[in-house]
């Protein structure tokens, strides 16, 4: 596989929630090969400090348009520099890197659990699951989502079919993003906020737990097939709760992990995570998505 490393033009870079940005890049090379759960590795400055690239998940990729989209939160030097970039400028990126979320052919009822900024790669995942399900159901190929922030009619063809269930949690109402896109992809979306400003007050894992105990949520109105796969991305407490619930319920579950990275390609052995069988796996190369039983310390 040939990997891209070079400059991509910034088509857009806007603040979609306080401190959270949505950037659209023109990069057909990355868009072509990108799979949900993969990331790009971004050089935030030409200068030598901050020195290292920053990994950011691909929140959407459109092969036809040749665009790659990311959603990121400003937390430090690197992301602050990113937020300062303007439309039209060039950005030095590498990718697509890592192994993403698998979508097995037998998936009937996927459940996606997202926490905060961790929701970003799940948008691409949701879109891919929808495409996958519809195309394997014999439907004609669907056009991708043109712009993940144009809510309401983001997907070429709103899916009437039920594709799966999403539980997403945010700090507060203002920080919510992606919910409309998830709905348009045919997912039943349950939102929660830490402060209760919208939806359920609490964590998305609370909802997952109820759902696993009680079956389809009371408000769903229809009976869905049993959950057969769980995907999650978010802060580590969320991931460990998902992992233990999934293993209890014996449902395969995939989580996206984070660790400080240098190379991003498996060369430096810097982004280690303890594997279930002893040794260490590399998040950048063996992951960032892992089946929960592969990793310990979750």
């Amino acid at each position, binding site marked *: 596989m*040939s990997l891209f490393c070079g400059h991509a033009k910034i088509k857009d870079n806007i603040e979609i929630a306080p401190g959270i940005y949505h950037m659209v890049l023109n990069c057909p090379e990355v868009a072509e090969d990108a799979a949900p759960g993969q990331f790009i590795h971004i050089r935030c400055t030409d200068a030598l400090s*901050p*020195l290292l690239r920053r990994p950011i998940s691909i929140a959407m990729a459109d092969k036809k348009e040749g665009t790659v989209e990311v959603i990121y939160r400003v937390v430090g030097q690197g992301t602050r520099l990113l937020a300062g970039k303007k439309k039209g400028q060039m950005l030095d990126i590498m990718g697509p890197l890592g192994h993403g979320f698998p979508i097995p052919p037998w998936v009937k009822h996927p459940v996606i659990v997202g926490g905060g900024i961790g929701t970003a790669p799940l948008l691409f995942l949701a879109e891919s699951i929808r495409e996958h399900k519809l195309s394997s159901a014999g439907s004609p190929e669907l056009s991708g989502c043109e712009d993940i922030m144009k809510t309401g009619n983001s997907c070429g063809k709103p899916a009437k079919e039920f594709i799966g269930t999403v539980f997403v949690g945010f700090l507060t109402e203002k920080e919510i993003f992606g919910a409309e896109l998830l709905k348009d992809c045919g997912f039943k979306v349950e939102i929660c906020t830490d402060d209760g400003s919208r939806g359920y007050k609490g964590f998305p894992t609370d909802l997952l737990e109820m759902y696993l105990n009680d079956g389809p949520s009371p408000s769903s109105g229809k009976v869905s097939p049993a959950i057969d796969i769980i995907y999650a991305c978010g802060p580590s407490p969320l991931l460990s709760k998902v992992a233990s619930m999934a293993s209890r319920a014996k449902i395969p579950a995939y989580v996206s992990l984070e660790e400080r990275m240098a190379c991003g390609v498996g*060369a430096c*052995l810097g982004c280690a995570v303890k594997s279930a069988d002893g040794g*260490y796996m590399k998040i950048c190369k063996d992951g960032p998505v892992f089946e929960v039983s592969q990793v310990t310390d979750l």
Partner: protein
Amino acid sequence: MDNKSIFINICGIAMKNPVMVASGTFGFGQEYAGFYDINLLGAIVTKGLTFEPKAGNPPPRICETPAGMLNSIGLENPGVEDFIAKEWPHLSRLSIPVIANIDGDTVDDYHKMARRLSSLEGLAALEVNISCPNVEKGGMAFGQDPESAAEVIKAVREGTDLPVIAKLSPNVTSIQKIAEAAVSAGADAISLINTLLGMAIDINKKRPVFHRTFAGLSGPAVKPVALRMVWEVYEAVKVPVIGMGGITTWQDAVEFILAGASAVAVGTGNFLDPLAPIKIIEGLKKYTAAQGVRDIGELIGSAHLFTGVKSRFK
């Protein structure tokens, strides 16, 4: 296209250009093969190998610092047998020299490594890492004392006919004394620098960032120190010097060559820009042409001319 002016031969290792990739920053070569044809490089140095497999240190293993990074990988590697079984087959198919970087807990470990690897058809040289700061035993400790450095190099020398490159630690009072000891013990070349010993503290957790407290500092931040040590070693010993430490541009590489390096290695620079080694090779071609130099060997150590020391290659 190949360019004779930057061809270089270091103690029998013939390279079409003087740009190598530093141990531990390029895995076993496959990771960067997606970005460019790695046969364009001068040479590849493998990740540090030990006799038995090593799991490495628990995370976190890296931490960014101003214009640099700390690493505490802890020599994670599959062990020499697994290397030979799984990595050597693809490495041996490359058209460029491959150098194995070796490490040990004991002097005997180094000797055994040397013997085992010498059996490999086509391996270009051994780089003897007596400078790893991230392991419990051996590593840097060997490289901080002329006698133990000599002991290790001698043990390797006795176990191999391959060229032996001693990789030195910068965490010493006199790099010249260590280099001299390594050469007396049989080193055919010296490579330096390995990482500077540093650390970082997490002020929220009020504890060191790394489990092993100390870690190795690399990257542009250390370049002035690395360059000085290359300069010093060039004046102290007669064998070729391989210079590394913070090289990210061809200008950096030229500085090292003028200071006395016969070849350079790109380490942390790969992380910033996977294409850095290739860009450096291109830059060196242009620089030698612009300087009217027909053989890059003429440039090696030539900055010493201004300080009354003659270039060894003139």
